């Protein structure tokens, strides 16, 4: 990849015998992070293509392009890949691995071999997911939620798919375990909890959710497997079982999991905003604290996914109330970012563009989340396109744009080169327009009663469905331009120095790209992460 001499190739320089095995068996956190990044982006591309195909089918009513069973399999696949292989690992596994140890002045994570093992588990999970599509009697058609009793009875290949989810969960747990230990044990001297970069704080909160919530998913999917193979009947209403308990178990993980998805992106935003506003972040402690508050409060609200399921009215009330509570720390963050921008000397570089995109999309997604979180309105829009629009705003508009912001922010550090900023800005605006054209109509359709996951629809939805599909094309054009631009940057971007943005966190004190073993001597930290006095861009 790097044609230049070894001295400025950093950790890209060949190691040992070089070649593929020096990457896929490397315990270097930077290489493992890049391995994750490559696979995650490949999975993202695959699932995006599936998404575009789904939109193509939905462009016109009636039996077009795909049969209903293929359609069911494809939306399941789109969900499973996007959630478990892309969004859950996205930022923590890639940039968490590459950047977090650098930000705390460590030379690696606490358990480097475990880190490698967790990447291999990710590979195994991806392979199993792939196997589940092409073996057995048809690809799973349950949706990514694997709801019982259908998932117990469908003849499609759910068994292998849930094993894939179990393995991927294990991989996620090991990453979280590694990060918690690393952040506790390997911070550089002087790097107190009050000086910890907010990206690290957000990863810390995320890691706790990964460790404490994921095992519940593990046992839940194991139980589906056991139900299908051993016929335990634990969720079978015909045998006294309660399908709602499955939903409880599933959401006890899967609601906190949305905070696994969004918290690291919030961390990225908290890094980028002060750097491009040239101002210390407003409300450092509140942002750090709100990450932990979101992690904790996020584990108290799972049953707001079940308001129409027939659970008790008391539970509806309590979980609806708690959902409003969890909105508070999220809002704290948004206000703090805006206050940081206020009266800053803002330079609108691509990372900041993606970050502003995040703030807009997340605000729309978050506020419409409250519509879903209040029991009264949820009855009306539950399981409609409104939900689909909401979570695509949060997950794609939030986590996705956060991930792209991270890619544009840390790109010079990882590759030692820059990219074309104008093209990156164009790519952003095209993607941003595309996203909104794609998902905004879904809010409207949802309010009008268009149910999610349906293969066909009434003629009244035809126009908005068509607009939404056109949006997907715009979005794909934007994404293509963005990835093309970044790849061109890797190939022949301008060489950059150690600190092209003038940021104050530790990773920018190292050469770009950083050397194999990170810090030649352990850094001593004497200032906060957003103290820009005396820090300037070096080229």
């Amino acid at each position, binding site marked *: 990849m790097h044609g230049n001499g070894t001295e400025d190739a950093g950790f890209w320089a060949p190691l040992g015998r070089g070649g593929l095995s020096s990457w896929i068996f490397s315990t270097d956190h930077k290489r493992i992070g890049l391995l994750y990044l490559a696979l995650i982006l490949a999975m993202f591309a695959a699932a995006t293509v599936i998404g575009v195909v789904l939109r193509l089918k939905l462009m016109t009513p009636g039996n077009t392009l795909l049969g209903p069973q293929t359609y069911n399999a494809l939306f399941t696949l789109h969900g499973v890949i996007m959630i478990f292989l892309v969004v859950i690992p996205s930022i923590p596994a890639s940039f968490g691995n590459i950047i977090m140890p650098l930000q705390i002045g460590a030379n690696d994570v606490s*358990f480097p071999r475990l880190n490698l093992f967790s990447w291999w588990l990710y590979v195994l999970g991806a392979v199993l997911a792939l196997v589940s599509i092409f073996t057995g009697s048809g690809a799973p058609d349950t949706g990514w939620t694997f709801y019982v009793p259908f998932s117990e009875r469908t003849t499609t290949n759910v068994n292998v798919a849930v094993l894939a989810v179990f393995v991927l969960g294990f991989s996620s747990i090991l990453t979280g375990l590694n990060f918690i230990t690393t952040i506790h044990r390997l911070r550089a001297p002087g790097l107190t909890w009050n000086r910890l970069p907010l990206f690290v704080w957000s990863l810390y909160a995320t890691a706790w959710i990964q460790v404490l919530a994921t095992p*519940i998913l593990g*046992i839940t999917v194991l139980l589906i497997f056991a139900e299908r193979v051993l016929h*335990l009947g*634990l969720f079978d209403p015909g045998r*006294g079982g309660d399908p709602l308990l499955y939903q409880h178990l599933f959401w006890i993980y899967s609601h906190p999991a949305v905070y696994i998805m969004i918290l690291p992106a919030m961390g990225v935003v908290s890094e980028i905003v002060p750097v491009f506003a040239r101002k210390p972040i407003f409300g450092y402690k509140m942002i750090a604290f709100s990450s932990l508050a979101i992690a904790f409060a996020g584990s108290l609200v799972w049953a707001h996914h079940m308001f129409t399921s027939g659970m008790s009215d008391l539970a509806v009330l309590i979980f609806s109330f708690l959902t409003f509570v969890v909105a508070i720390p999220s809002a704290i963050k948004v206000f703090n970012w805006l206050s940081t921008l206020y009266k800053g000397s803002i330079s609108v570089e691509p990372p900041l563009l993606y970050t502003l995109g995040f703030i807009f999309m997340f605000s729309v997604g978050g506020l419409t989340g409250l519509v879903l979180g209040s029991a009264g309105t949820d009855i009306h829009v539950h399981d409609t396109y409104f939900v689909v629009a909401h979570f695509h705003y949060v997950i794609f508009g939030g986590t996705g744009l956060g991930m792209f912001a991270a890619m544009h922010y840390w790109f010079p550090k990882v590759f030692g080169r820059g990219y074309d900023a104008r093209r990156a800005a164009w790519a952003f605006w095209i993607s941003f327009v595309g996203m909104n054209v794609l998902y905004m109509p879904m809010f409207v359709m949802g309010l009008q009663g268009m149910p999610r996951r349906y293969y066909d629809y009434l003629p009244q939805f035809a126009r908005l469905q068509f607009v939404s599909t056109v949006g997907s094309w715009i979005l794909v054009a934007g994404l293509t331009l963005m990835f093309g631009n970044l790849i061109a940057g890797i190939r022949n971007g301008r060489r950059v120095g150690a600190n092209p943005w003038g940021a104050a966190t530790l990773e920018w004190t190292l050469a770009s790209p950083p050397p194999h073993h990170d810090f030649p001597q352990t850094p001593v930290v004497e200032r906060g992460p957003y103290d820009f006095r005396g820090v300037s861009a070096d080229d």
Partner: protein
Amino acid sequence: MTEMHKDYAAAKMGMWLFLFTEILLFGGLFLLYAAYRHRFVLAFHQAGQALDVVLGGANTVVLITSSLFVALSITALQQGRKVRCQWFLALTILMALVFLVNKYFEWSAKFSHGIYPGSEHLAQLPQGQALFYSLYFAMTGLHGIHVLLGAALLGVVMAFVARDRVRQDDYVLLENAGLYWHLVDLVWIYLFPLFYLIS
């Protein structure tokens, strides 16, 4: 390169974090148990009578004793008494095997009465009782797998002790294996009253 010495505190913290995941893994099943016991109090009561308190109690004693043995093996290694450590590890593994053999007899007795997951007989029982047995097999089964894994882990550590890869001044692996084994004991401490003593 990386750290020259091992970070014991990190290794232990990592192990505890892993134990949390095990606790919550079983936690999902305990949730189901609580839910169905709440709904089928009487059926659980009746179904529990069919379980043998003597066998369950014996296994409780076996596991608690094995927990003592693994703790003693750590003390022995800390004092530099390697052979004594190995003996106690061997005894721990022996206890694990006794537990599994006991479990085997218990399960096969149930099987011979037509009580196994998805059996005809279970389908004819009242729903609450069938669910009790489903939970019984799921929870003791998952626990049994953990006994097996724990014993294997202790076996590996025992080999390491023999080769001095785990020794008086570097025994965190033994401690962590011990922690795992105590967790296996811990889960059983709850399984025993919930299944054998609720009649």
